């Protein structure tokens, strides 16, 4: 915090020296088989937002985990205010005034906000905890930065946006002057993103140094002062945001020209292939996750299901594919009522599923690429004859799909778990799409994939549309929904708030519906 804001007394006491500049020089970090960071130089100064841009696996998170003391660099040095430091653990980094908000929140769900903030800190009462005092300070801090947070609320009661605020509070509470945010917008609605950006600008003015990790070009351009692009563990360059362009940054990230526009030829939608009527289902916590969903998807149509994650998207997908039991309502595929059918019967009807948890629900990590490719169809000819498996046929089929879908694998006998995320997704895509599905449920199909793999997956989904598949696309990425869908349905707390045609969709309006405001 800078000179402007009056600092609450407790922070003045705890405040370490202010950090004016953090530098990382020649950082090298090797993991078995990969160099995650290769002689990386990076610096951030007080009063600036410095974006770290790159594809997945470019080494952004690794670099920042080194700065935060979670990893030890193999080579290179870190300087705070020009002085060499060594962070053996996050504790050392916190002591030096560096805080990090992780991509996956580091919050203990059954704990209150105050307990989470107090975690790991000495108590002012020595042995007995001082949660009442912590709560009072949280309120002070929240006021300074214009948050609304109840220190006594339990984490599991909070929305994702609120949880993120708790994360930021935790860092501020520890008097950090350097704040690292790892993909902070991935889980937020457009409005919440705006709120976060206001807070960040506020903090910048107060003299904080902020590192903003992202792979979203628009956000990086709108929030940051400088942008450093990483590719394959190396720095491609550092540019002032004012001089950067979307295409220029994309080229730096990927190393070649990127086509942002996807070809979407006109397809006349056919009959209704997937119909959902007044569907109710319980979530994992025993409260209804779906509260009367109505939706239909026609042949040759992609319907995008937009919404902040956790509003029933996962449960809807699971009910449709037979992994979760509905309480009420109906699911029809074509003319058949399939409510409550087991997955095997649905697969037989031509339903394909690209699951959100692609490792957990999409394959068997220990099985080979080949076995995973025939996972759904192995009981049927030509892969099975009687009780015997036809191995030559399976091998032949696997080789063909590996080639067709460009799955980068050393061989068809390689275990699935040693493939990269993008190639695992291509494998699932290969298995699901080559069964010529009538209905495709694609949940977060490009989450965590790099630009090239994302492009590939999207093109394949569009191709499937031309072949007449009815696709329900569930995604947290609004850009993805907008660029692929024919119609967009917005889900909020287990209800569809409205369905709009893609070309008439307006981001503002979608954002409002995602926040629970009924469509006009």
């Amino acid at each position, binding site marked *: 915090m800078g000179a402007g804001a009056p600092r609450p007394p407790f922070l003045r006491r705890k405040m370490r020296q202010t950090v004016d500049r953090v530098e990382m020089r020649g950082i090298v970090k090797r993991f078995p088989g990969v160099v995650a960071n290769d002689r990386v130089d990076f610096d951030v100064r007080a009063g600036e937002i410095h974006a770290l841009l790159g594809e997945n696996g470019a080494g952004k998170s690794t670099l920042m985990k080194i700065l935060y003391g979670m990893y030890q660099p193999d080579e290179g040095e870190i300087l705070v205010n020009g002085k060499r430091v060594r962070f053996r653990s*996050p504790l050392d980094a916190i002591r030096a005034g560096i805080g990090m908000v992780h991509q*996956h929140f580091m*919050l203990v769900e059954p704990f209150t906000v105050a307990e989470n903030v107090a975690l*790991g800190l000495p108590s002012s009462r020595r*042995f007995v905890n001082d949660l009442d005092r912590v709560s009072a300070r949280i309120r002070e801090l929240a006021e300074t930065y214009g948050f609304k947070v109840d220190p006594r609320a339990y984490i599991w009661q909070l929305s994702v946006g609120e949880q993120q605020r708790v994360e930021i509070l*935790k860092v501020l509470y520890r008097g950090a002057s350097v704040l690292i945010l790892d993909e902070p917008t991935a889980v937020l609605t457009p409005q919440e993103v705006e709120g976060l950006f206001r807070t960040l600008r506020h903090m910048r003015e107060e003299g904080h140094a902020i590192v903003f990790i992202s792979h979203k070009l628009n956000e990086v351009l709108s929030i940051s002062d400088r942008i450093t692009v990483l590719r394959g563990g190396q720095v491609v360059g550092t540019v002032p945001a004012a001089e950067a362009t979307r295409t220029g940054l994309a080229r730096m990230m990927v190393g070649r020209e990127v086509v942002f526009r996807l070809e979407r030829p006109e397809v006349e939608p056919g009959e209704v292939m997937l119909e959902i009527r007044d569907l109710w289902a319980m979530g994992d916590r025993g409260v209804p996750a779906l509260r009367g969903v109505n939706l239909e998807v026609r042949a040759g149509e992609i319907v995008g299901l937009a919404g902040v994650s956790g509003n029933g998207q996962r449960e809807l997908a699971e009910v449709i594919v037979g992994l979760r039991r509905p309480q009420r309502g109906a699911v029809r595929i074509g003319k058949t009522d399939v409510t409550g059918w087991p997955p095997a019967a649905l697969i037989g009807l031509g339903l394909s599923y690209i699951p959100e948890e692609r490792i957990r629900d999409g394959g068997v990590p220990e099985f080979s690429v080949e076995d995973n490719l025939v996972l759904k169809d192995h009981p049927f000819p030509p892969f099975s004859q009687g009780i015997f498996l036809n191995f030559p046929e399976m091998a032949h089929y696997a080789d063909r799909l590996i080639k067709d879908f460009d799955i980068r694998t050393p061989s068809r006998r390689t275990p699935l778990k040693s493939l990269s995320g993008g190639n695992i997704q291509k494998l699932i895509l290969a298995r699901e799409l080559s069964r010529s599905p009538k209905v495709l449920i694609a949940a977060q199909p490009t989450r965590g994939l790099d630009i090239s793999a994302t492009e590939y997956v999207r093109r394949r989904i569009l191709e499937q549309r031309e072949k007449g598949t009815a696709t329900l696309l569930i995604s947290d990425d609004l850009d993805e929904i907008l660029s692929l869908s024919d119609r967009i349905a917005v889900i909020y707390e287990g209800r569809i708030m409205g369905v709009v045609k893609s070309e008439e969709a307006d981001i503002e309006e979608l954002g409002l519906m995602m926040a629970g405001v009924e469509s006009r």
Partner: protein
Amino acid sequence: MGWESWIIDTLKRALAYGTPLLWGTLGEIYAERAGVVNLGVEGMMILGALSAFAVAQSTGNPWLGILAASVVGGFAALIHAFFSVTLRANQYVSGLALTIFGLGLSGLLGTSWVGISLKNPLPKATIPGLERIPILGEALFRDHSYLTYIGIVLAVVLWFVLYKTRWGIAIRSVGESPSTADAMGIDVFAVQYLCVIFGGILAGVAGGFLSVEYRPAWTEGMTAGMGWIVIALTIFAAWDPLQAVGGVVLFGALYHLAYRLQAWFPPEFLKLMPYAFAILVLAVAGLRKVKRGAPASLGVPYVRGQR
């Protein structure tokens, strides 16, 4: 026999029988709150029982016996901590191994002590003043082992530490989400080691109680499945030290009642009780589907940088 003496008798026996269960359960609660399941309770208890008896018999001082039991229990737990925390071995396998190891080793080393009865068992105490309360005073505050009183006070203290101190926040956070605790600067391994060893110390004392107080003699396998009841009671108590006291008294009373019914039931029925109870608790916990208070990362070895 009047109903008063019947109640007094039942409560008294429940507390006496429940004391080792209480110590063991309190220890297991702490280990599991830090995310480490230790199925070695039975093994730690029996090793504690043998060492307590051996030391008490050799020195003539039962308290030295209890001290020895706590040290041995702590060391036995250290083995489990090393395997499950440092080597990240399967906690269930490591714990079972510890139980089998403890039962075997104590049987081997204890042969020369079999059949001797302890000269100088642990004294009993009466709390002046409180013993005068009608019925309850006589049942709860007269002629109990020191370890019974200490155990109940310990339960209150451990509850306070768990919920009202910053150490408690640290321990619970490690069991719920070790990666979060790690990121907040808490030494996850240290917390897990300390809690597991603490659990072992308590389990050792529980075993010591058996051989220098409850039945002042050494018999092979004298823990007779108590370690498994401890595991069940930990779940039954929802990992809460105060609820553990309730669970222990309830189970102690049930056990005593079954004992009284001996005239009508075969002794095999008695031997079956602990296991039946353990299965019953697990079944009820499973049927209710809600994992009441189970630490979210229970039984999962923590690897930094993995989710």
